[in-house]
């Protein structure tokens, strides 16, 4: 394996009396799809926010592409595509304005790919973001996360915004394409079926601690299914995809 894309070491984060992350250590090498699994409030988004540099490590360290994302946000963020769980795209922008604005930040922005994604996602360039449905907003967010062909794609709970068709037909294909091109995908989810479909490697997090981190094949060998592994390590059943 080559040098790690993400290297988190002994990361602890507290919000008041709550320990959101407790001595978390993870290392993600290049060119694979990593599923970060955990119940709501387990610490998935907190870990992702540290990786993006939105939270400063209180103790321990976070390195992305070998760099500190807080000290060097430009070098790190220009190589990451990020789809936020919050879906906070500016409502006043039109879709074409969002694409034009976002493209300015990424030297590797691919206009042809952006147009292809816009057509695939059926996004009207003249439509205002605030007039889009929740699913369409998530598609627009995914478009700007993908169109600069990032070295690392971070998807925070993509299932919470994307509609089932995009999740089933498009997201999986996109994720596989990125991984096949040697790039890396980190996506968090509480839907085990979804993770099982696309992930090469699964990291389970519970109450701020990493309880299991292993290749999916190895997990399936030791347990009958990902769900069984989750129950064994976390102690409660995760949400089936159909309920999400």
């Amino acid at each position, binding site marked *: 394996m080559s040098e790690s894309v993400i290297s988190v070491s002994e990361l602890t984060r507290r919000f008041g009396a709550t320990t959101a992350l407790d001595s978390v250590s993870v290392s993600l090498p290049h060119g694979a799809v990593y599923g970060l699994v955990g119940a709501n409030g387990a610490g998935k988004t907190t870990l992702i926010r540290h990786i*993006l*540099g*939105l*939270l*400063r490590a209180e103790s321990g360290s976070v390195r992305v592409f070998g760099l500190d994302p*807080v*000290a*060097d*946000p*430009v070098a*790190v*963020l*220009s190589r*990451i595509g*990020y789809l*936020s769980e*919050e879906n*906070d*795209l*500016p*409502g*006043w*922008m*039109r879709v*074409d304005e969002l694409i*034009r*604005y976002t*493209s*300015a*930040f*990424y030297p590797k922005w691919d206009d042809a790919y952006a147009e292809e994604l816009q057509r695939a996602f059926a996004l*009207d*360039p*003249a439509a205002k973001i605030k007039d889009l449905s929740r699913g369409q907003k998530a598609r627009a967010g995914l478009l700007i996360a993908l169109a600069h062909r990032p070295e690392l794609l971070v998807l925070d709970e993509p299932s919470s915004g994307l509609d089932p068709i995009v999740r089933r037909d498009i997201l999986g294909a996109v994720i596989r394409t990125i991984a096949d091109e040697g790039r890396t995908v980190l996506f968090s989810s509480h839907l085990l079926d979804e993770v099982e479909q696309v992930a090469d490697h699964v990291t389970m997090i519970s109450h701020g601690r990493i309880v299991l981190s292993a290749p999916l094949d190895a997990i399936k060998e030791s347990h009958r299914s990902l769900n069984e592994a989750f129950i064994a390590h976390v102690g409660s059943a995760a949400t089936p995809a159909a309920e999400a």
Partner: protein
Amino acid sequence: MRSPALAIGWEFRRRHRWGLIAVAGYLFAVAAIRFLILEPGEPVLVDSVRFAAVVSVPLTTTFVYLLAVFSFGFSGDLAARHSMYPARMFTLPVTNAALVGWPMLYGTAAMAILWLAARLFAVWPSGIEIPLIWPALLAAALLAWTQALTWMPYGLPGIRLIVAVLCLAALDTVVLLAIHFKAGEPRMVAILAPQVPLAYLVARFAVARARRGEVPDWRGVFGRLASNAVRTRRRDHFPSPARAQAWFEWRRHGLSLPALVGLLLPFELALLWLAKDAPAFVFEILFLALITPPFMAAFTAWTVSQPNPQVRDSYGVPPFIATRPLTSAELIAAKLKMAMWSTLAAWLLVLVAMPLALEWSGTWSVVTERARHMNDAIGTPRAATVVLLMLAGFIVATWKQLVQSLHIGLTGREWIVKGSVLLTLTFLILLGPIVEWIIDSPSVQRALWNALPLILAGLVGLKMSAAAWIATRLDRNRLLGDRALVAGAACWVLAVFALYGVLVWFFSTPFVAHYLLALIAILAVPLARISAAPLALAWNRHR
């Protein structure tokens, strides 16, 4: 809590408890002044400044606050097409009459109580007859109409504001005309009393439509035009990330100040038509128009320094902005650039509208006459410098107002933002009495004048210490490179020297020492607060 009336009332009380407690505290304080401090029957000689500080300003502020509270103005989007009535309440198992009636009843009652309490408890100047009933009715009517007009769904974004301003101004005009023609209290009551039931009917219609999801859409034509424009005009890429971010800031905040100035200016300059025969009044109107941009900038600055105005109660930087591959200093630079363009746009409006209004109103000659006097008194170069300096001063003050609170708002810490607002309000409340005390006390004036160099030197020391600390932090946190820091410092020094040069040339008198002018120039050119903005943003962005 078994009734919808109690539940709706509880929501207002719970959500705005601190504001309502402050209003009650204010009324209690003015009542204490009247009944515990003043002797019964003692004539009250209150000057306009004291009256404004104790009654007019707090009363107007409370009135506006209650308007916002009871029309759900703190949570709604004034510019949106859909109703400002909270959609979450549409699913409550209550009738439209209850949804409209209870907030309107609570609001109108609060307005009436506010006036009656102020009328009965506050200290009013002796010898002036203050009406009791109709102002309470006017306040209630204004609230009821505000509720009706803001809860109405509209076909186009932004129409709500225009309709509300026009309707409320029409109601005000009727009242002003009635006052002009010396209408008595019964007639005023007859005019105002039907307003609340009328507004209730309109509000009920509005909420019923909004509840059914009937939001008219007149954007078809504009939408098609926009769509065609998008298809035919492919915009080029931004030349740099910095330009893209400046465009983003301009689109988000840039037009707010010019729009506010553009809304107020016609009303202010229209007064010139009434001032043809009163030259002094002409200059008061012009001064009013000139202070409008910096004054309105102080209000606009609140949204500029709010990282995430779309999300209520959120002071943090939204992930969409926080994950832009830009440094915090570059994000601030875009805000500063936007503020500059916004300032220039607002002043362009003023500088175009003012001569036109003077010319069309026939008051241009009053201004040229005064300019000729000034020219004769101090000479053309000095007269031109005075005018240009004043203009530059107003423009810089507008820009400064827009950006000087960035270092507070962008920290993302609620306690800092609210603490700063509290400190500012306290300072403003204390300022009037302190200024008056100084004006009334020649000994204090002498002491202050003698200590002026020391005071200025102390302020300069404070400013430079803060700037040095901020520069160290900017360097240590790698928010600004060495070259940028040196270039920024050099620009600041140049600006200080330029201002010092102008001041020395202008005040060429032995009565003003040059070192005083140097201290004033150092204090006048912004440095510490603007330099602190990237630190504040970085503290918020990387929590």
